């Protein structure tokens, strides 16, 4: 047996997209993105400054050492073994003249035993003259602290970065709490705004020009919307008026005509049928307007409605109809479904579904009703075939041609109510049973 599940086509607009974040977060991220290269540039600059300073100091030390050495060389004889010393830090060996006027200072890489790697050294090299002999004097000092320097600077910069991050978050939070507060207040007001509150909408004055402008724009937009809505509402009601009045005249005229005792039975019957047709027309008009009003959101929920109470009321109301058709009603009420619905819509929803379950049933048929916190479900036996998915809930698509007086709007109204009130309706046809389920839309936050 095919089971058709019709899922309401209504889809919610996704509120949280991927490139959509809180103002606060966005603010922070932008700030950090700007701060990151700034801090990096600062780090590089600091490093260069320190590096320069380090070299300068090192060079002064080297020159100082050289002066000491020169004094010492002058005090020892030419054949002293000192003139043949070669160590990584200090070496002196004979050279050809002439002597350099200035020492040559440069940075070199040299293998260091202790560290087992090439490390940077600052080196002073000069050809010097001690009495008659020339020597090349090389003094080196390890620049191993430079590594430490980089590490220290990186550390300081990281700490500064973390500190700034915390600072920015804190400041942003404080700012959004004070400066942005009117904005968030307006936002919240608009989110919670309901149609009938629109004419009474007010925003407090803020100290920020832009926020005042925003509030003014919001106020103008909502009052225009409300104005349009009122015009629309008046139009639908006027349309009702314009149509119902001639209908009333015609109907009442026919009702009077029926009282004429000179009329033949066949004439009476014709009048009665015309009267009946007019009544259908006015019913149709009434229902169409009702749908338009639902669509215009003229029935806003005032609070939560107990579906259990509504159901029990309508079971009582339809008691005799049920008895007349000798229907077997099974109810499984394990809890109450609380829906945010206008009372009239709640009545219409239950009345139409229960009414259909009675109307499209056969004598001695069954109705099964289930109600709990999650859903309302109603199932009825019927001789009528499955309603094709494409026609279900459509206006004027009658379930069966037999019911010539049905206006086919009952289910369309039910659908309209569920669509505009964040509810979902499902239809299942299985083994000669029509099954309708109403439940709150689960995709709403």
């Amino acid at each position, binding site marked *: 047996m095919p089971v058709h599940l019709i899922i309401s086509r209504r889809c919610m607009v996704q509120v949280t997209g991927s490139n959509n974040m809180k103002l606060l977060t966005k603010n922070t991220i932008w700030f950090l993105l700007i701060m990151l290269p700034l801090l990096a540039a600062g780090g590089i600059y600091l490093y260069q400054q320190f590096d320069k300073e380090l070299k300068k100091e090192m060079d002064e030390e080297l020159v100082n050492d050289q002066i000491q050495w020169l004094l010492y060389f002058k005090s020892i004889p030419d054949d002293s073994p000192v003139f043949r010393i070669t160590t990584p830090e200090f070496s002196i060996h004979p050279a050809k003249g002439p002597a350099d006027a200035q020492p040559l200072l440069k940075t070199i890489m040299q293998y260091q035993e202790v560290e087992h790697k090439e490390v940077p050294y600052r080196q002073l090299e000069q050809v010097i003259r001690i009495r008659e002999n020339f020597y090349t004097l090389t003094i080196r000092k390890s620049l191993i602290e430079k590594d430490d320097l980089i590490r220290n600077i990186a550390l300081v910069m990281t700490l500064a970065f973390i500190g700034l991050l915390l600072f920015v978050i804190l400041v942003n939070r404080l700012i959004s709490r004070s400066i942005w507060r009117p904005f968030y207040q307006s936002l919240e007001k608009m989110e919670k705004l309901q149609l009938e509150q629109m004419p009474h909408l007010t925003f407090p004055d803020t100290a920020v020009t832009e926020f005042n402008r925003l509030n003014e724009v919001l106020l103008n937009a909502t009052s225009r919307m409300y104005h349009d809505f009122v015009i629309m509402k008046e139009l639908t009601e006027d349309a009702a008026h314009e149509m119902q009045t001639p209908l009333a005249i015609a109907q*009442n005229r026919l009702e009077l005509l029926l009282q004429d005792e000179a009329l033949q039975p066949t004439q009476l019957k014709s009048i009665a049928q015309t009267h009946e047709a007019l009544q259908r027309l006015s019913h149709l008009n009434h229902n169409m307007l009702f749908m338009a009003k639902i669509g215009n959101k003229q029935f806003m929920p005032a609070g939560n409605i107990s579906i259990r109470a509504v159901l029990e009321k309508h079971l009582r109301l339809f008691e005799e109809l049920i008895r007349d058709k000798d229907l077997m009603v099974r109810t499984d009420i394990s809890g109450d479904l609380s829906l945010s619905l206008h009372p009239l819509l709640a009545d219409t929803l239950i009345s139409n579904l229960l009414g259909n379950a009675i109307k499209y049933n056969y004598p001695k048929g069954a109705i099964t009703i289930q109600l709990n916190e999650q859903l309302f479900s109603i199932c009825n036996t019927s001789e009528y075939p499955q309603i094709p998915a494409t026609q279900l809930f459509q206006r004027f698509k009658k379930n069966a041609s037999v*019911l010539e007086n049905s206006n086919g709007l009952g289910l369309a109204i039910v659908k309209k109510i569920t669509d505009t009130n964040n509810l979902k309706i499902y239809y299942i046809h299985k083994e000669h049973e029509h099954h309708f389920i109403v439940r709150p839309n689960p995709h709403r936050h």
Partner: protein
Amino acid sequence: MNILIIEDEQALQESIAQYLGKQGYVCETATNFREGIQKINDAEFECIIADIGLPYGSGLDIVKELKQIRSDAGIIIISAKDSLEDKLNGLGLGADDYLTKPFHLSELSARINALLRRKHFGGNTSIIFQDIQVIPASKSVLVHQKPVELTAKEYQLLVYFIANQNRVITKSALASHLWGDEYDMAGSYDFIYSHIKNLRRKLMDAGAPDYIKTVYGTGYRFE
């Protein structure tokens, strides 16, 4: 019983006056607000039927005016607008009943009947039709002084019939009286037939003649 009908649609006004006239009421008519106010001030009426949309004013203002002059006339508002607001407004101002156009003349007659009974006898009177006595206070029915057990719907039917005695009442009028307009009957009036059958049987069992006449293809007449 004097009734004032304030309705700007001539045809509708005439139909109402004609139907109610046949029910034994004396009807006066007004076609606009000013005329309505003038007639209210000129004479006493037991009941006033006022349309909401009138030239030169609203039916609701008629209600206000009536309350101001402390009239104890029953007021029935009729309107083409099936708006809950209007309804609550009208009733809040002191109207006694509200009918949405189009309505059945038999329904209007039944409402006037109930209203006048409520107004003038505080509901403490009984309705007598030949050998049938209906006591609205206890919703009980006596035939030849003996109680007859009726269901709520059968009782409603009987009262409606008596209010519209000697008139042809359509099945659709009975249906909307018993069930309201909300429930679309899908053209099947079988259930009305079974209620009428039961009512007729109970009344006849109690010794009353068969008052309910079937009018071929149309409805019923209580006579």
